[in-house]
């Protein structure tokens, strides 16, 4: 799974595209956190909710359920919403 990381989180990954394993969005995020400790909490709060200014897209569709299944060898795009100041 290729995952696009927003610039605000490059301090964790050092690059915009990374590889992560998992058959759901939640599992991919867990694997990202294993590789880059702390990155998940910056995107997902302690109640499992996607933070206000973070958006995840899979095949051009916005992810609203972290349980969404993901096929292998696909792409997940994480972006920061262009809101706020």
């Amino acid at each position, binding site marked *: 799974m290729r995952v696009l990381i*927003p610039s*605000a*989180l490059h301090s964790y990954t050092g690059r915009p595209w990374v590889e992560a394993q998992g058959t759901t969005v939640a599992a991919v995020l867990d694997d990202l956190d294993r590789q880059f*400790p*702390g990155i998940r*909490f*910056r*995107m*997902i*709060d*302690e*109640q499992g*909710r996607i*933070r206000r*200014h*973070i958006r995840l897209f899979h095949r051009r569709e916005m992810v609203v359920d972290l349980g969404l299944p993901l096929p292998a060898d696909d792409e997940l795009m994480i972006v*920061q*919403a262009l809101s*706020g*100041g």
Partner: protein
Amino acid sequence: MTTHETPPGNPVLLVATRKGAWLYHADAARRTWRVDGPHFLGHIVNHLVLDPRDGRTLLAAAKTGHLGPTLFRSTDLGQTWQEAAKPPAFGPAANSLDARAVDHTFWLAPGPAGEPDVWYAGTSPQGLFRSEDGGRHWAPFSCINDDPQYRHWFGTVQDGTPDGPKLHSIIVDPRDPRHLYFAMSGGGVHESTDGGRSFAPLVDGMEVVAGFDPAEIAFHDPHCVRACPGNPDRLYQQNHCGIYRLDRPGRRWQRIGRNLPPAIGDIGFPLVLHPRDDRTLWVFPMDGSDVWPRTSPGGRPAVYATRDGGETWQRQDAGLPADQAWWTVKRQAMTADRHDPVGLYFGTTSGELWQSRDEGGHWECVARHLPEIYALETAYPR
């Protein structure tokens, strides 16, 4: 009570701003400052604190406009930083109450000398957290975060400070680590004598906005509470509704701000105590009239000092702009060093850093054009 000690070296000012953090290192005369920063450029840094117990460990409470909150830790005065492995975060839903998420950590407080790795943190929305490993891992502390009575006293987001209701002013009695205080905007002042197993309100004598019932703890809005360094039985408080003193074991706050000039009033946010004299403190009054402009009254900023526990107050504005200066000072953005005479420092909402080397007698601008200053601490690294 007045005590004396030798300051342990040159002070460093820890400047936390809306867009990052800076360290200002003083020379021995406190006349020139070496600037180190920015750290975390673009991050909202609500508090930057040096552990006074080891003189080495810095903790920074940070988030950005787009990302969730976290804490960073440094043991080399900011040359390198490590993120906390587990920042403050609430637990799952409990007691049939809504589950909450920390928006930002607002207040950091080192624990007592006898517990060298203990830190406390206060968050927005109101939550109390504790670390027992020097700030690496944090856990909810005490029952208050998910206590139905405290949830009622927390109020809602609409009841709190514009950028979120806050738990702040965490005070650990240096004589007894089981004796704790904290305050909430809004939600009152609270005390524990059993190490945080339970807390109870300590609001007698505190006023609330006219027309509201002071018996309702949720209506109380303490802005900043401090315990005198040399006399922990004496507390001072800057509140939404005035300035107060409390001498323990008494339980009734006495409003001492009434003695300020009526045209200035006793509304404000920061309150700074003399490091050795429990009768001396400084405040920075703010315009809290009608729509709460949150500026200096009349555009003429001034510190007010008392040297008799609040009986009388003196205006200290020498060197400050004489007019048309519409900034103010947030609750964490004013501090004192431990020199004799005491150095005072404040950071403004307009990004200026000011100092006085003579206990407020004269003021000089140390820096301009910083981002909005959220917090300022004096530190003595070792």
